[in-house]
């Protein structure tokens, strides 16, 4: 059947099962908007800034595991999308971003609103395509979704010149994709799995170190069964939280720079580290020279390039972690072998001693609102079952530490790029994907101002988000580093001239609350959570001097944490 490129575009989205698209119109994509206007299958969310569109698509993807989709115009539309694309790349978010482009005849002429979107995004995408002929459009979109969602997921950019969206061409959506150069490994190598098993089962001081790959690979159930069967301790990375139940006694908390003492000490003293879908990021390892000095390391990951990149491992297994864990469970069952019970008992005894230090304790008698307290109460009052997004800074770390995520895809934050401004637009995407769930955005007064304009989008689409602003009047994470490492010279970290956030929320048509005393925290949270048809913006005036503990300072090993 013949149709225009713009109509083909819409049909392709429908074929891919895309129900929602986040975007912002402009000259180069007008044909597409015209085609979107004339149909009902794919709904479009109009954001207030293209960065918001891409982050919202990420929020949608991170909370569902499905591909998020964004559409922006050429030139400034595309450049505004860049931060979101980079954010998705660093966190391996399955996403397809469509950028408008000037007509093919004008490409290279410095035409109005022309940028080399393919060139600009090349280092921050899994792949990108420029469609030069309408005849290639459907097949290219098919490839884009396939690449974005398979193997190690990631963002794919498809650049669409205006004339291609106007031209008429045949529509035939390919049933499958074959790319001779792209064949992600699914099953792990049986020999490697056997080697890993032998090491794992004989471990005396084992630890399971699980990352975002468990969430992306939809392997939380398998991981939990694996860990439960063995009785081994589990730690999660920032991106892996929820991959193993946070309230389980086998869970040691997050590891890394602001991880728990018990998690980091267990890593340091372990004899076998079982890394599952984690990438030995520098915020996890601290000084790599001092990382896990006594351990043999098993590493399962779908991306071979993540293996032995920063830390040399002993048993690499390339494949989907879900499949590998299943195979390990079969071996565990069929071999009838059991872990070394007495060694394990001693190991747990040691771990409980570390845990008894209560590294996450804080002053509960303070007159001031402690940010940790707000998160703890939030956890209690939502039954630990909300979808929680955060921005970047101290509030992000406190949320990771004190909100015990029991399920995957509930914790949505920017780990790799550490992008301030993501929290609110992430939450929009999450709420769109889960209209009946409680969605909370924990933020700081610095971060929220980077995408504050999206409060307007929230009103337009009636998104009943709950914004928890931990307002410490400082770019807190920056202030903390200046306190620790720059003798308290607080250069540009005090946020002067803050707006009245209550009035600001009201100006955007939402409900604003200001909470100044610890005894008012519960009441405010309860009231806000009970309003399931309104966005409530809670401005918690918190202790400006609070720091995130514990901490591994730069250059130190995991056993050299600063405790409170």
């Amino acid at each position, binding site marked *: 059947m013949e149709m225009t490129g713009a109509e083909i575009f819409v049909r392709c989205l429908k074929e891919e099962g895309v129900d929602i698209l986040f975007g912002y119109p402009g000259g180069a994509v007008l044909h597409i908007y015209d085609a979107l206007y004339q149909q009902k299958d794919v709904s479009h969310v109009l954001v207030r800034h293209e960065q918001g569109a891409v982050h919202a698509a990420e929020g949608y993807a991170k909370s569902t595991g499905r591909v998020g989709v964004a559409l922006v115009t050429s030139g400034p539309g595309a450049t505004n999308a860049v931060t979101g694309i980079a954010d998705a790349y660093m966190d391996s978010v399955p996403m397809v971003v469509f950028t408008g482009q000037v007509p093919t005849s004008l490409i290279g002429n410095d035409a109005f609103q022309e940028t080399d979107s393919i060139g600009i995004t090349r280092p921050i995408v899994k792949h990108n395509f420029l469609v030069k002929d309408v005849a290639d459009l459907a097949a290219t979109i098919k490839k884009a979704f396939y690449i974005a969602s398979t193997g190690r997921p990631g963002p794919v950019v498809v650049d669409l010149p205006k004339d291609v969206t106007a031209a008429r061409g045949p529509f035939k959506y390919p049933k499958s994709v074959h790319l*001779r*150069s792209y064949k992600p490994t699914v099953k792990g190598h049986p020999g490697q799995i056997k080697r890993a098993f032998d090491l794992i089962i004989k471990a005396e001081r084992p630890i399971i170190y699980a990352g975002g790959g468990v969430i992306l690979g939809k392997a939380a159930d398998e991981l939990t069964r694996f860990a439960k069967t063995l009785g081994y301790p589990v730690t999660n990375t920032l991106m892996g939280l929820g991959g193993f139940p946070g309230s389980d006694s086998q869970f040691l908390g997050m590891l890394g720079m602001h991880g728990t003492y018990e998690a980091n000490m267990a890593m340091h003293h372990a004899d076998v580290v079982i890394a599952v879908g984690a990438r030995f990021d520098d915020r996890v390892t601290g000084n790599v020279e001092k990382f896990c000095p006594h351990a043999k390391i098993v590493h399962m990951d779908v*991306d*071979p390039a993540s293996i032995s990149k920063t830390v*040399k491992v002993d048993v690499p297994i390339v494949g989907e972690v879900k499949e590998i864990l299943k195979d390990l469970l079969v071996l565990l069952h069929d071999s009838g072998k059991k872990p070394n019970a007495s060694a394990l008992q001693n190991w747990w005894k040691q771990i409980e001693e570390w845990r008894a230090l209560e590294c996450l304790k804080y002053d509960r008698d303070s007159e001031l609102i402690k940010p940790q307290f707000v998160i703890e109460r939030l956890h209690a009052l939502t039954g630990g079952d909300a979808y929680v997004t955060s921005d970047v800074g101290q509030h992000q770390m406190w949320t990771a530490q004190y909100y015990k995520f029991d399920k995957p895809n509930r914790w949505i934050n920017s780990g790799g790029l550490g992008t301030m401004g993501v929290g609110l637009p992430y939450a929009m995407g999450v709420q769109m994907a889960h209209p009946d769930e409680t969605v909370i955005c924990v933020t700081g007064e610095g971060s929220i101002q980077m995408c504050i304009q999206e409060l307007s989008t929230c009103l337009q689409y009636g998104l009943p988000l709950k914004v928890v602003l931990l307002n410490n009047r400082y770019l807190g994470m920056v202030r903390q580093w200046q306190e620790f490492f720059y003798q308290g010279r607080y250069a540009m970290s005090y946020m002067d001239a803050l707006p009245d956030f209550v009035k600001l929320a009201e100006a955007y048509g939402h409900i604003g609350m200001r909470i100044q005393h610890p005894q008012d925290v519960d009441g405010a949270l309860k009231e806000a959570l009970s309003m399931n048809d309104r966005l409530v913006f809670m401005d918690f005036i918190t202790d400006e001097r609070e720091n995130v503990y514990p901490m591994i300072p730069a250059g130190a090993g995991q056993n050299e944490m600063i405790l409170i």
Partner: protein
Amino acid sequence: MRHIISILMENESGALSRVAGLFSARGYNIESLNVAPTHDPTLSRMTLVTHGNEAIMEQIVKQLNKLIDVVKLMELEEAPAVERELMLIKLRADGEAREEVKRLSDIFRGRILDVTNKIYTIELTGTSDKLDAFVEAVGESRILEVVRSGAMGIARGERVLRA
């Protein structure tokens, strides 16, 4: 250590910049790079010469394989292979040096492509080492211009790189 990587990649605009971009973004070094379409017009063959220890080479190979446009690659020195580079060199060849330049060219099995009464333009092929040796032998002061293709390579015997 010096390594030669042969890469078969999609003959598409942008493929070359993905490889070049990967090397600059990750701080890998490129000593030379040579690329042209193969007998199959959908494929290009690239030969890339780089330096790095074992860990860096492992990452380079993995990162290259991750690029969607890279179909296949091999590290040439893992098995016996032939390496060749082409050089065109323009030399001042006047007075008594004229005979000397000719003699050197013969020793290195060069071909004189173009002659004026002051200049020889010579074609040479061989390993990059051999070309270096020729450049050294004629001496800086005689050289007017050098064009080198960068190394290319192919495995000996049965071993082939194909899609």
